[in-house]
């Protein structure tokens, strides 16, 4: 093969991780090929989704201003669902929308396609509609990829092929992802006029709300999300698949019941369901990251590296993907000997504080083993609210006694103590 047919880098997958990596490499003059299996970037992707802006800022100052972002999130909402009622905590902070806004809701088909276009503008080649089948290995090194009968070679192959990372497995870096380490997310996109979204969520036109909800999963470890976009709402649930499999109802049915919950349905009424998507997401954070993310000629970034943070309130993936793509690009640019690139990549993941972020929440997922969070406690909150707000002319019951009764209905003191201890240990 002629030398000019060889690329400096081949990036597999034009999601945020792959595009971030390719963007920086191409900007620094590297000859980069990005291969995307979808007909366009983003066409195979599903996420909640919200992007924390700092990651794009790390990549390039003010880049977010060019991005097709939806609404800047200034309302953070936590919803505890009862059978029919709901208790919602609504935290409004306009500061989240000032200066460089903290986060935006995003639609992946738009975001990823834009990002891939930015990569092309920097001089990289983005080839969509190409599925990478195999890695080419020579003398213990990864030297390229195979797609059908085509072979393409590069000094380095960056696997940004998503949470299922078949390439990382083929490189022998890690086994298949395990069920306990992921969540399965389902989502409906519902079109709704922008003005209705703004008024229903008490937002200015360019502002957005992000909501998490518990108590809507039939007791399965998991939770729902709602993001306001421009002209649409993303509504979904992420389930622990192992627990879901041990109960009788299909997750689709549980999701549809959530959609029709009296506290949810009015938010989307008048809208039109336009898409149904599903995806698995890394759920256990630091402990889910494979020990080996590189070998000679090969790096793993983004979801493929199982980078994710879920605190129940904060759900992160795309920002970590972008930072890891940046880390990979910096490592490749710094590397003078091919064998060192992997170590440099891990060093960059530290320097960019990605691993520090993962470590900070490393035991957090243990909280999700507390089963009452997903059923008993949200019900408890709503029963307490019902008691506190009920006026019917009868002699009011003694408040403390009645509230303790509500608590006892859902959890014994022993259970409360055990759950509290577990939560304390996880934080």
């Amino acid at each position: 093969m002629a030398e000019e047919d060889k690329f400096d880098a081949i990036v597999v997958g034009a999601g945020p991780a792959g595009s971030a990596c390719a963007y920086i490499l191409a900007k620094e003059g590297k000859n980069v090929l990005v291969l995307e299996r979808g007909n366009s970037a983003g066409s195979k992707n599903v996420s909640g989704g919200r992007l924390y802006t700092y990651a794009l800022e790390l990549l390039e100052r003010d880049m977010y201003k060019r991005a097709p972002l939806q609404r800047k999130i200034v309302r953070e909402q936590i919803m505890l669902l009862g059978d029919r009622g709901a208790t919602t905590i609504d935290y409004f902070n306009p500061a989240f929308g000032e200066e460089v806004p903290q986060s935006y809701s995003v639609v992946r088909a738009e975001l990823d396609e834009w990002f891939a276009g930015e990569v092309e503008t920097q001089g990289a080649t983005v080839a969509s509609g190409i599925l990478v089948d195999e890695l080419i290995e020579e003398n213990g090194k990864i030297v390229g990829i195979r797609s059908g009968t085509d072979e393409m070679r590069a000094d380095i192959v960056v696997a940004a092929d998503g949470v299922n990372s078949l390439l990382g497995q083929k490189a022998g870096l890690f086994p298949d992802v395990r069920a306990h380490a992921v969540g399965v997310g389902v989502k409906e996109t519902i079109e709704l006029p922008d003005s209705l979204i703004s008024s229903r969520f008490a937002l200015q036109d360019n502002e957005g709300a992000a909501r998490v909800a518990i108590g809507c999963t039939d007791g399965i470890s998991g939770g729902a999300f709602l993001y306001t976009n421009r002209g649409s709402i993303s509504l979904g649930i992420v389930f622990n698949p192992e627990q879901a499999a041990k109960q009788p109802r299909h997750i689709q049915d549980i999701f549809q019941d959530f959609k029709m919950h009296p506290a949810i349905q009015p938010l989307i009424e008048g809208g039109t369901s336009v898409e149904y998507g599903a995806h698995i997401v890394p759920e256990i954070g630091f402990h889910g990251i494979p020990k080996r993310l590189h070998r000679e000629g090969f790096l793993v970034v983004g979801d493929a590296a199982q980078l994710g943070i879920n605190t129940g309130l904060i759900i992160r993936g795309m920002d970590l993907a972008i930072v890891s793509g940046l880390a990979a690009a910096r490592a490749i640019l710094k590397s003078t000997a091919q064998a060192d690139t992997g170590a440099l990549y891990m060093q960059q993941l530290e320097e960019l504080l990605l691993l520090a972020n993962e470590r900070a929440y490393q035991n957090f997922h243990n909280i999700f083993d507390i089963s009452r969070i997903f059923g008993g406690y949200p019900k408890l909150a709503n029963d307490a609210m019902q008691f506190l707000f009920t006026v019917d002319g009868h002699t009011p019951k003694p408040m403390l006694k009645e509230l303790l009764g509500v608590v006892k209905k859902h959890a014994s003191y022993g259970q409360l103590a055990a759950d509290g201890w577990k939560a304390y240990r996880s934080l």
Partner: protein
Amino acid sequence: MTIKKLGPEELLSLDKFSVDEGHPHILVDKAICATCKARPCLIVCPARCYRLKDDQVNFEYAGCLECGTCRVVCMDKGVTSWNYPRATFGVTFRCS
């Protein structure tokens, strides 16, 4: 009311698929599924590609959302091969 509970077929009809006729990207061994007691796929496949038919697990790849859940939860390895659809085939998300 414009918002309604949608059934499995209605949900998938919202999506755009290009089915690679004759080339299933996921292979399922029904003999293994026949002895599987847990059958997590029946509950957790978001597209309900796995359904019971005459007491047997029946797999239909046409509406697959390519999420990978079946592969991850399949303990008895009835999913014998899991790949992405060939290029240009499968689901195309436009607004997710």
